[in-house]
């Protein structure tokens, strides 16, 4: 496989309800791809399949290298007494010595603009800071592919801008699932539109977002 992600004819069902049907796409290394679709389209399920947390009923998912992920609710990912320990934990689990893990975690938090909050627990931070802390924890692992589920949900415009700037500085491949079309326009070059478990459109983000009919048809406007 040359790219970072390859998905072929992916199928997934919750009992009798088919959630993903024949989904195929690829992401090149370093490419940033958006994933849009109405509620219940299967976006989160697709991300969970890519993370390896759900086993597809059929089809193939290949990820080159290590994936990193940020959930919609960052509180589910941050549970240590300080965000510094949250970022250090996966590094230590992968065998990094404590001092090195601490150094890398501090660098990741500084890159996210959170160096002053490093010793604070996640529940004392604003949602925007929590999202950036979860992103820092994912990035500290130096993932080859970053998967983000609704990174802007409940964020104010300033936090969205900060997150967008942070994401645009990254070199790894990214798949960003969001309803926030303006955010996707600013952070992704290519867009996938999912509706009722099927991939209904794929192409340059600007082109798809300027197609009013397409957006209306699939509940994005």
């Amino acid at each position, binding site marked *: 496989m040359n790219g970072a992600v390859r998905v072929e004819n992916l199928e997934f069902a919750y009992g009798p309800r088919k959630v993903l049907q024949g989904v195929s796409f690829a992401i090149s290394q370093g490419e940033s791809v958006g994933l849009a679709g109405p509620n219940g389209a299967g976006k989160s399920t697709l991300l969970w399949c890519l993370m390896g*947390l759900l086993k597809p009923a059929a089809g193939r998912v290949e990820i080159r290298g290590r994936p*990193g992920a940020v959930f919609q609710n960052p509180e*589910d*990912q941050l*549970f240590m007494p300080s965000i510094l320990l949250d970022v250090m934990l*996966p590094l230590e689990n992968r065998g990094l010595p404590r001092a090195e893990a601490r150094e890398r975690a501090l660098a990741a938090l500084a890159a996210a603009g959170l160096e002053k909050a490093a010793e604070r627990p996640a529940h004392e931070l604003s949602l925007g800071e929590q999202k950036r802390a979860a992103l820092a924890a994912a990035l500290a692992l130096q993932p080859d592919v970053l998967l983000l589920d609704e990174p802007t949900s409940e964020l104010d415009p300033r936090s969205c801008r900060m997150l967008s700037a942070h994401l645009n500085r990254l070199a790894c491949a990214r798949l960003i699932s969001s309803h926030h079309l303006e955010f996707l326009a600013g952070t992704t070059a290519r867009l996938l539109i999912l509706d009722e478990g099927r991939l209904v459109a794929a192409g340059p983000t600007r082109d798809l977002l300027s197609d009013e009919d397409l957006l209306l048809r699939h509940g994005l406007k």
Partner: protein
Amino acid sequence: MRLPAAWAGIVVFGAVLAAVEILVLRRAPFIALRMLAVAAAGLLLFRLAPLARLAEWGLARPPARKTVLYFLFLAHFSRIFLEEILSLYHAWKLAAPNRWNRSWGRSLACATASLFPRTLRRAERFYAALLLKGMAQ
């Protein structure tokens, strides 16, 4: 204050559990009492102990690491549980403002029952996060 409302939920949950033990299992409500005792002890520990320092100290020592992580996960999940109780309590209070009628009791029963699937969903996402952090395999 968030805590008293959350505690009201724990007490209601404990009372339901006690009722099940007494009426269905026909025995003294040991599980409910134990749950309340653990919740009270946990709260006391949380308030009195410098947990962040203790956790950092324990995590740096391999023999204590697993135990410290276990208690951290337990504390995190307890917080999730309290949050869910609190949000359900608020939703229930808004939905059933008139007390002591039939819908008041029914809505309380439904809110208490919906606590389980909601908490399970949060637990599932928490477990997924543990997997991604290289734990829980």
